[in-house]
């Protein structure tokens, strides 16, 4: 087990290193320099700026400097907003994104498992087909369509919820719903198919033959096993919620990290783009790492297939 964890950890660090390097060299590959767009900057000031930001150093030195800063969690300062560091922006924005993201995960898992269960228990009946149809629609409709649809119905037509902002608890409803729609649909499909598999397994017959009550069989024997594949979906779900939040925050006017990200792209604020991309990537890789570990604990067969691991 220890070897398995270490292996995954090492793998994550290599991936982060590759991405950080790729980001650095990509940003250096952009023609021109970041201060060129502002007009009428005297050559002397231009030179001074380059000196200040270390842009006159050889590429290798710049790279080492950048990597050294990364190790100390220094992502640099924004190139368009003076005296604002990337870390500052993450500190202000991340709390909103995190709240919405966590609520969305909770809703997605709860709704997904519930609907998947309903579908599996009504296999080949109306409720099954209906849930499946909703789930296919759920994975097909882009989240920005869902978000604007909700906004239109509840915000504009019915006027029961605020169209934008995040001022009181009810304002969370629409962003969280829009963000959790796709993962919920996906989880429902996962749970349904694995539940159908589990329900026809021999140990279900054994449990029934022992005379256990229907609820115990369902929860302790069936659902517990059927929910395993959901664990593997945590990684992709995090990815989904991160990219989703970028769009959702823009639509609902929430000042989270996603909104800063979109703005940084429109302003071509390169240090901010770099910093936020890396931050997102690290969160995502952490989620994947935790998924791998969790799966190793939950499903003992993983250890077996790896041979004599710790």
């Amino acid at each position: 087990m220890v070897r398995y964890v270490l292996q995954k950890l090492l793998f994550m660090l290599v991936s982060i290193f590759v991405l950080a390097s790729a980001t650095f060299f990509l940003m250096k590959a952009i023609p021109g320099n970041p201060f060129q767009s502002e007009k009428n900057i005297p050559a002397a000031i231009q030179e001074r700026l380059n000196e200040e930001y270390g842009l006159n150093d050889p590429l290798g030195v710049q790279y080492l400097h950048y990597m050294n800063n990364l190790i100390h969690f220094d992502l640099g300062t924004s190139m368009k907003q003076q005296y604002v560091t990337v870390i500052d922006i993450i500190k202000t924005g991340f709390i909103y994104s995190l709240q919405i993201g966590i609520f969305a995960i909770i809703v997605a898992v709860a709704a997904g498992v519930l609907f998947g269960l309903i579908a599996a228990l009504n296999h080949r009946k109306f409720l099954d087909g209906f849930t499946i149809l909703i789930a296919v629609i759920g994975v097909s409709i882009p989240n920005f369509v869902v978000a604007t649809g909700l906004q239109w119905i509840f915000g504009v037509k019915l006027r029961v919820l605020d169209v934008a902002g995040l001022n009181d608890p009810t304002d969370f409803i629409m962003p969280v719903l829009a963000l959790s729609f796709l993962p919920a649909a996906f989880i429902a499909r996962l749970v349904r198919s694995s539940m159908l598999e589990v329900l026809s397994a021999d140990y279900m017959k054994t449990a029934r033959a022992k005379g256990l009550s229907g609820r115990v069989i369902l929860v302790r024997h069936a659902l517990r096993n059927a929910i395993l594949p959901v664990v593997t979906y945590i990684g992709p779900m995090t990815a989904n919620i991160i990219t989703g939040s970028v769009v959702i925050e823009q639509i609902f006017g929430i000042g989270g990290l996603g909104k800063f990200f979109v703005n940084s792209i429109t302003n071509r604020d390169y240090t901010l783009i770099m910093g936020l991309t890396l931050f997102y990537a690290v969160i995502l890789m952490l989620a994947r790492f935790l998924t791998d570990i969790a799966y190793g604990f939950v499903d003992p067969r993983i250890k077996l297939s790896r041979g004599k691991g710790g």
Partner: protein
Amino acid sequence: MKEQTLTPSDFEKLSQDEKQGEIVVRESISAWKDAWLRLKTNRMAMISLWILAFIILVTIFGQLIATHDYRTQDLQSTNMAPSSDHWFGTDSLGRDMFSRTWMGSGISLQVGIYAALVDLVVGVIMGGIMGYFGGKVDEVLNRFCEILYSIPSLLVVILLIVVMEPSMFTIIVALSITGWINMAWIVRGQIMQLKNQEYVLAARSLGAGPSRILLKHLIPNAMGPIIVTITMTVPNAIFAEAFLSFLGLGVQSPAASLGTLINDAIKAMTVYPWRMLFPATLISLTMLCFNIFGDGLRDALDPKMKK
């Protein structure tokens, strides 16, 4: 051993009855035809196929039946509701939304289809090499894929497009850089299963080289999962493109994809909802049909998997 003796009666013609027993009455059905017959019984998948065909047809010929072209601005009639003149209304610059929606559909579909094709070519080649040669080659390439895969693909795509100028070409390139890995893994798994079968041994002993065995024997037999993966890649690429448009990294004006149209419409959503309605419905319908059709295709090509 008993010696076999032939009598003159062995050389007589068979009676008509005996001949009938050997005649194949029904036409023989190939694996592909079999899959098609199964697919035809799946009502949802067939409906999706018809809707997709319809969408593609209108996308191709939409510009011809439209009353206005997609780029002419008419500042006298901006943000108009749908009417007999402008079937889907007009946008904030008075451009005809009918024509723009189908133009957008064309770009979205092209991004989806080209991205899927690049994934197909690169993924099949890489997956074929990994699966067929195995050993060290497989290990190195597989590690490479794993590292590339562990980097969030949309973030890479965003970075690449920030660096390159956004256009349909760069979007397809950026999507393909990480997109092929999934296909490669699926092909690899298939090839690993297939390469130890007798017909491969037979081909090898007849002197066929690796590329011939891969292209003529292994990949045709792995075609089912490959086709299903392509069908599922298209909606993902369409969504990715729409997402990029949302960040302002999509195709640039006056051209527009469905994603750009939706992004433009969101700003005026509360006042002119119809500008949102048509592109949003179209993109959702396209992705929905691709997904349902892909599900149906998977069931048809691999009946054992069906639940």
